[in-house]
């Protein structure tokens, strides 16, 4: 036995050119690595790829007691029903409005703050401000919304302060008409600081000699900002815009669930909460899966389209 196993091994050594290795030899060499991959791969199979296939229930009349396979096919019926639901269109409308507000008000905020931080001469002040503004990113949405409530909620300090001076603003946190603006304000408070990191890094990567040349040519700070800094970080801005575009249909799910009681479903229903309340809570499994599937496909298509567009304009985009 010993001889017989030793012989092939010797042969392998003779012909040990890497590209000639057979599957068996590679398996023998790499089995430890494959074993190391196993838990992670298993995770992605079970909680990504199999559920991905589970989306077939969008085309079925799913009933939990029949299971996915046992439930009857219904073709596109779930999609037709979904598109005829006024509540679904409310959710789509709210989602798009909040996305628009975020693009308009939140997206530029980290860029502006990064430019402001970059213009600081003292490094110590800069680092101190950074330490403070990064912090809210690490808070849970429960904490963030609670913090807003204690300041501008019905009994909030600013609300009561203003009321004591005869200015009534009411409970901003429970006003359905203001909800979308409030939700955007919460995102700004939570993530503006964190968002500066990538822009600050991009600004640091700009060649200092460009600024020197511009200054020698007599460009003041406004022109240097416009002609050197902003063009320098343009690829990063475009990359983040593309990523945001792919996520256009996802807006702060947890935020909406938390404030639903205060402002009502009409104002706060977005596509993700629609899926949760109609699917998990009400048991409209097929229809809400159809909503999720559509959302996912549109998102992927948007990423693809935006990336193509970026290439058209001579930018790097996120992939080639």
């Amino acid at each position: 036995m010993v001889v017989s196993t030793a012989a092939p091994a010797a042969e392998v050594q003779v012909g040990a050119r890497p590209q000639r290795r057979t599957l068996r030899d590679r398996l023998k060499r790499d089995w430890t690595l494959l074993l190391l991959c196993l838990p992670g791969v298993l995770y992605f199979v079970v909680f990504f790829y199999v559920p991905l296939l589970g989306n077939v229930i969008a085309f079925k009349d799913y009933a939990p007691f029949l299971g996915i396979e046992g439930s009857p096919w219904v073709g596109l019926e779930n999609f037709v029903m979904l598109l005829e639901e006024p509540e679904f269109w409310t959710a789509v409308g709210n989602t798009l409005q909040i996305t628009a507000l975020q693009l308009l008000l939140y997206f530029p905020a980290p860029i502006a703050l990064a430019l402001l931080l970059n213009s600081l001469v003292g490094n110590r002040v800069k680092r101190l401000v950074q330490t403070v503004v990064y912090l809210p990113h690490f808070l849970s949405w429960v904490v963030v919304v609670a913090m807003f409530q204690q300041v501008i909620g019905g009994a909030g300090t600013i609300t009561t302060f203003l009321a004591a001076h005869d200015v009534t603003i009411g409970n901003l946190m429970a006003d359905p008409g203001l909800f979308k603006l409030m939700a955007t304000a919460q995102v700004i408070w939570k993530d503006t600081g964190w968002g500066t990191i990538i822009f600050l890094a991009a600004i640091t990567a700009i060649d200092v000699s460009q600024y020197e040349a511009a200054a020698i040519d007599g460009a003041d700070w406004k022109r240097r900002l416009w002609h050197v800094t902003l063009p320098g970080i343009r690829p990063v801005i475009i990359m983040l815009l593309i990523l945001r575009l792919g996520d256009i249909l996802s807006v702060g799910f947890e935020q909406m669930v938390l404030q639903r009681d205060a402002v009502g479903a009409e104002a706060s229903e977005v596509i993700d909460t629609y899926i949760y309340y109609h699917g998990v809570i009400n048991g409209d499994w097929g229809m809400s899966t159809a909503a999720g599937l559509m959302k996912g496909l549109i998102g992927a298509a948007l990423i693809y389209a935006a990336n193509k567009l970026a290439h058209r304009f001579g930018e790097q985009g996120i992939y080639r």
Partner: protein
Amino acid sequence: MERPTVAGRALKTAALTAIVLAVLYPFGLAVGTSLTGRAESVANGGGYVLLPAHPTLEAYRLILSGGAVTRAVLTSVGITLCGTALSLLCTVFLGYALSRRGMLGGKPILMMVLATFLFTPGMIPTYLMVKELGMLNTYQSVIVPVLVNAFNVVVVRAFFQGLPDELFEAARMDGAGEWRMMWRIAIPLSKAVIAVVGLFYAVGYWNSWFSALLYIDDHDKHPIQLVLRQYIFRGGAAQGTDVAIVRDLPTASVQMAVLVIALVPILLAYPFLQKYFTKGVLTGAIKG
């Protein structure tokens, strides 16, 4: 270059001060309110007090005396510790294997991980999978479905790939296998990156509440963030034991005491996070 003008500097200082205050004020208010006693809170209409005249630990003493909050804190600590350890192991293992050049199946496995960036399976199919596996109402349900983050795998892999090849070659000459090389070379040289990734997982587990709402009906198994939600948005204590406490104390103090408790681990981890995260975020962003 010319010096900034006086007016410009004043404007900048004002803007930065306003930003810093806007971030810090709610933290101060939460802490102050949590330390406020009944009389003072009643005298002060809203119940929220930035600087209580007579700070008291009443609210903390009550919520930590063994009710729902105490249990929820222990639950969250358990979930965070177990979850982080498991996530970190799976992420480092996968990241290490994928960082080794020419591994059998390395390309397809990497593609399989990267593809998860483009699409999500959606909430309903994931929920049904958790149900199918019999995980509803278990602690596993808030860990296993979010066990590995593809982005973190990419970050760890990129860092391992940057380690000098000679180290591995030398170890191989000495007869070390991949398992040994991972533990003896790759991991010790990547402590910083592993710490960042671990802290990110830990923050994620500590802050998570929606998966518990989705998968766990049993209130006794709810984590602190979900209990906090109950206190703040559902106007009262979670279940049973703590109701009496709320009647005796101003609601705002109790609410904010729970909030501060939910916040403390984040504040403790923050200096470490801050020390490393810029680096971690950027390697991932550039190479991902």
